[in-house]
């Protein structure tokens, strides 16, 4: 379904040169849930931005259904691949009502029947009709993230790119949003690419997990391998130990990678 091969991204020139993504390759099958996990600066979000077309200074190959993508994305690509961002406070237009936010992609893609689509998609993400004509500031963080998910779903895409969709939310709200994402995927047979710094979230949501560090893929493991600690790299082990909470003795063994 989605294939990334030898992806490289370089920001800046000269002394400010930053090789943010180095030879990253992976492929995601239809209906699969693929997780990218790593610490800040590991390049995980940059990979997602290259796939979505938000960045165009990449080198390498990105294919969808065997078709290589060019720098400029077509309208049908945008309909097929949608993205949900980390910060629900920043990703919704503050002066547009939810209704207007959701109708904009419908209009761009000339799908028609906007009223019915908005109504249907709001119901699907668990927001009642009373939210339809509200502004983002009248909603809580969790509700806004539901709107962001609704905006991605309204075009009926096959691939959804999720960039830290719950890291700005409280744990109780995180559980609700993760449940919603799992339900929708099952109902619509979606393919997910999820970026997160939280191993537990990735393990809960994904089948295959790519561990990234400093722009490079450390290793790609299955969820089962993660649970059974069946992996070869020390970096992955350190991430796993760190996600288990505070342990004074273990911290002295931490290394820089």
């Amino acid at each position, binding site marked *: 379904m989605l294939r990334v091969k030898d992806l490289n991204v370089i920001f800046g020139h000269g002394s400010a040169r930053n090789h943010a993504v180095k030879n990253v390759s992976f492929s995601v099958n239809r209906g699969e849930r693929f997780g990218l996990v790593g*610490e800040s600066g590991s390049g995980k979000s940059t990979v997602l931005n290259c796939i979505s077309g938000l960045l165009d200074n990449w080198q390498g190959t990105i294919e969808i259904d065997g078709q290589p993508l060019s720098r400029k994305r077509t309208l049908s690509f945008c309909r097929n691949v949608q993205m949900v961002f980390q910060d629900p406070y920043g990703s919704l237009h503050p002066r547009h009502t939810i209704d207007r936010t959701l109708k904009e992609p419908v209009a761009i893609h000339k799908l028609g029947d906007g009223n019915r689509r908005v109504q249907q998609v709001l119901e699907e993400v668990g927001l009642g009709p009373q939210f339809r004509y509200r502004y983002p500031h009248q909603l809580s963080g969790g509700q806004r993230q539901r709107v962001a998910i609704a905006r991605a779903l309204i075009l009926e895409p096959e691939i959804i790119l999720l960039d830290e969709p719950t890291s700005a939310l409280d744990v109780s709200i995180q559980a609700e949003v993760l449940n919603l994402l799992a339900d929708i995927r099952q109902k619509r047979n979606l393919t997910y690419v999820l970026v997160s710094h939280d191993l*537990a979230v990735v393990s809960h949501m994904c089948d295959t997990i790519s561990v990234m560090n400093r722009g490079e893929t450390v290793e790609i493991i299955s969820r089962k391998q993660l649970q059974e600690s069946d992996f070869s790299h020390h970096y992955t082990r350190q991430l796993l130990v760190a996600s288990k909470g505070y342990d004074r003795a273990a*911290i002295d063994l931490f290394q820089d990678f």
Partner: protein
Amino acid sequence: MNDPETLLTVHNLSVVFPSLKGDVQAVNNISFSLGKEKIGIVGESGSGKSVTGRAILRLLPPYARIQADTISYKDKNLLSFSEKEMRRIRGMEISMVMQDPKYSLNPVRTVGEQIIEAYAIHRKVSKREAKQRAIAMLEAVRIRNPQQVYKLYPHEVSGGMGQRIMIAMMLIPEPSLLIADEPTSALDVTVQLQILAILDDLVTRRGMGLIFISHDLELVASFCDRIIIMYGGRIMEIVDADRLHMSGHPYTRGLLNCLPKIAGTQEKLPTLVREESWLHPATPTISIGN
């Protein structure tokens, strides 16, 4: 309360923010006390955990109404202190580390100058001695090249380094109590743990008290001795960290259950069902002391 080890006692603290739509009760009648220990305050956003930390040091906007029967620190009644007297408490006796070093450090002054300021405000020392102390402190928070970092400006250091500098600055006047408000939430997990280890070592070595404010229940449980769990401005319960997983309070259970786990299945996560009765306790469950 008469325990000589007790550093801070808070009794029936309430904080109200007046607004056009009526008063907002951010903290509602909470009581706790702590000695030379690590105590965690955990809650979701809006639970009043940060406001509690700030109310102790009176670091709230002037329109906030702070009411309490007692806020006493080492048997001194902080409520009766003037603003001038409070300034002697802040930093010297009780200091506070905020969440984001980016906003807490002065961008146009070097790291060294700022650390020296924190020290010199409370003690009369020569410039040279203050500089030596500052560099020693940077070393204590495990910055490898303290001489070099001393001369840097805040934008030249990473988030993890910035937070270490903040901790150095807050500990240099040698306070007896440190309030850390989400000191590591903006950092990567491994850096977060390394900074907590530094805090832990310094707190243990100097025999300080620590109030650690966080939203991360599991982290607090593994780091602190006792945990105060807050919801809607009230204390739901105070538990020993090692007994957290045996807690019977529905809110605590709800928070613990809704966390995804690496070893867990991929089935639906239980969600938290909030009960109105938590905010209107028939008999206030207040526990003071250990």
